[in-house]
């Protein structure tokens, strides 16, 4: 008999977790994981595998979980995914593996993400499972940026026996996993653990290295690197371009989250970096970063945390679970609303003036375009605003690399299958190519580029 619904994952109560930074869900116990694994039909077509950007053998690992062979399950996952504890927590599974699950046609799909997370956490509590490393090839690859794309490329190439150096400009590896995604959604200890596993595999990760300044991409090739992978991400925060956006109290989501996550400002003054959050905070945007920001503001003491989004609930680009969690915690959604001006007094933010919107014709992306309603202006008194409307490409590598083709937004032009750029031996992937997307899409790009780099090295073997 098929269990129609997913085994629920226990989590902190909304009224409690809204005031702390501990992770929201607790994860499955072994018994819960086995029960959920038993729901998998082990269907021959396995659409879930094709739905996974890194192509994990999902039925394979789930079968091991069902049989309580957890270490084997971990091995299967790690064959395709270097960061399972991360992906189990932050992947938009509903649009990927779980979105195409055969069981999901009639019932709730198998909770693949929760099972992946369970396996990764089981490994952390038991013995670490390091993938096999092929014999050393002597080929050297420089990876620029230690975010999801770069770390994945590094792990894949290291498994093939290549010598990998990852250059990160911040003081800690992880990219958006460290500075962007909050502790309550992705504990930093877990990110560090996954990165340590890469180090144990022999990946050399160097922090505080500003490539583009200390060495340019061409100089790395001159230094004897056989190939370079650029995974420098979408770093440059976008603003709305409305008056008052530089008032004190208006943050970019990047600044707000970096202060809180990477710099641990939520523990100020034990940690030296401060952050200021007043009683009422508005976050502008509807993606995961907006949900993260609004929920972080609540945890930093805001009495009221409001999402302002110009389209309707159906168009919210955030993961369903994030919207659900945000609502449970009491985040208010002010939908079909667009800020037109931030107003202040003595340089401090006091209010935001907004326009109400209605949905018009679909735009080129297929989402219905928001259209302002005339005369609908109103004001919300606020202490802080967080602008979470996306990021442009990180400028350093595009600006300092000669003959690197860029698109009109400044993203690096790279083949979507191979990551090959306009420069020989230079590959790129992740947000620096696609613009802001998801962790797993960046990881998929890193993985595909790693395969292409390996092929390139084999072709040029002398």
């Amino acid at each position, binding site marked *: 008999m098929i269990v129609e619904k997913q085994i629920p994952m226990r989590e902190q109560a909304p009224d409690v977790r809204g005031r702390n930074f501990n992770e929201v869900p607790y994860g499955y116990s072994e018994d819960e994981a086995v029960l959920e694994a038993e729901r998998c039909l082990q269907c021959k077509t396995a659409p879930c595998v094709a739905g996974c950007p890194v192509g994990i053998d999902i039925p394979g690992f789930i079968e091991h979980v069902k049989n309580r062979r957890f270490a084997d399950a971990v091995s299967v996952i790690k064959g395709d995914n270097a960061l399972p504890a991360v992906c189990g927590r932050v992947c938009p599974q509903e649009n990927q593996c779980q979105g195409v699950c055969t069981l999901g046609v009639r019932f709730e799909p198998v909770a693949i993400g929760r099972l992946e997370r369970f396996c990764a956490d089981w490994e952390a509590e038991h013995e670490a499972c390091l993938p096999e490393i092929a014999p050393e090839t002597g080929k050297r690859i420089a990876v620029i940026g230690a975010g999801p794309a770069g770390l994945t490329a590094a792990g894949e190439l290291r498994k093939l026996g290549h010598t990998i150096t990852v250059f990160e400009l911040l003081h800690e590896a992880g990219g958006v996993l460290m500075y962007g995604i909050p502790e309550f959604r992705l504990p930093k200890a877990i990110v560090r653990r996954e990165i340590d596993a890469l180090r144990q595999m022999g990946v050399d990760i160097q922090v505080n290295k500003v490539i583009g300044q200390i*060495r340019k991409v061409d100089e790395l090739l001159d230094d004897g690197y056989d190939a370079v992978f650029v995974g420098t991400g979408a770093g440059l925060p976008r603003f709305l371009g409305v008056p008052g956006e530089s008032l004190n109290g208006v943050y970019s989501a990047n600044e707000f989250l970096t202060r809180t996550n990477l710099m641990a400002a939520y523990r100020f003054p034990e940690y*030296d970096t401060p952050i200021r959050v007043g009683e009422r905070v508005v976050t502008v945007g509807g993606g995961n970063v907006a949900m993260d920001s609004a929920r972080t503001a609540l945890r930093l003491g805001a009495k009221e945390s409001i999402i302002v989004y110009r389209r309707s609930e159906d168009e919210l680009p955030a993961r369903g679970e994030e919207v659900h969690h945000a609502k449970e915690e009491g985040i208010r959604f002010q939908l079909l609303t667009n800020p037109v001006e931030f107003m202040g007094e003595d340089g401090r933010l006091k209010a935001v003036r907004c326009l109400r919107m209605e949905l018009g014709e679909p735009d080129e992306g297929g989402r219905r375009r928001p259209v302002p309603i005339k005369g609908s202006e109103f004001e919300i008194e606020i202490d802080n605003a967080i602008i979470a409307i996306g990021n442009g490409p990180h400028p350093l590598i595009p600006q300092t690399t000669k003959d690197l083709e860029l698109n009109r937004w400044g993203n690096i032009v790279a083949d979507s299958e191979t990551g090959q750029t306009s420069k020989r031996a230079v590959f790129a992937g992740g947000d620096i190519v696609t613009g802001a997307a998801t962790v797993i899409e960046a990881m998929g790009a890193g993985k595909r580029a790693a395969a292409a780099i390996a092929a390139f090295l084999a072709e040029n073997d002398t």
Partner: protein
Amino acid sequence: MYKILKKRTLGPKIREYVIEAPDVARVAKAGQFIVLRLHERGERIPLTIVGTDLDTGGVTLVVQEVGKSTQEMGDRFHEGDTILDFAGPLGEPTEIENFGTVICVGGGVGIAPLYPIVQALKKAGNTVIGIVGYRSHDLMFYHDEFVAACDELHVMTNDGSFGGKGFVSDPLREILESGRDVARVWAIGPAIMMKVCSDVTRPFDVRTIVSLNSVMIDGTGMCGGCRVEVGGVTKFGCVDGPEFDGHKVNFDLLISRQEYYAHEEACALERYMTEAGEGAST
């Protein structure tokens, strides 16, 4: 980890450090900055580069102890010790060419990052007129260096304890009024000083470059905390600057943004001083 090769006191609460960072020393140019972090719980502190030494791999910085982190650096980090993180160079270098006669104005601790610019301008063939200002005689530093590097040097103190009495803007105005052909002016120091200098040069239509020390986290274009308004357009201090056209900078906004965390900074410093005091008494 980055070793402190040298540390010396330049004046009350002003210290010079040479940090071992050969990657940075090899490529850094005048006008660029670095970001350092002292320890695991530290904040990222942006500091403009004062000098580099290719032989030792040293990067020279001058730090004024104004808040908790800089105070802690002065108290607890000594020659031979290491700091945890050091990244750079960041930002755009100063535009250096032979302009003719230029004036370099430095105020307080801003005199330190002005020094490599003066040297580079001199080396490029400019006639460099230096104007440096201190609150008083006991806060003076780099005097000999500026005497050696400049073709002409004017020293001002607010209280008249050395050189002329008054502000750096006074000799700046006098030189421009005297009709000398000045191609370009640099002004580096407190925001208010840069604002006044820019106001002085504006009627003479002399291009004036200022170096903005806005609040920032990463220093690489990611946080946008350092945004400044230049000619009505929002710019990022870290990647578009730190140097901008002083005639176009909205200094009032800069000053306002610099003060956003004043309360937190004061609390952190007080907490640190209390702890340090307790430590000293046991």
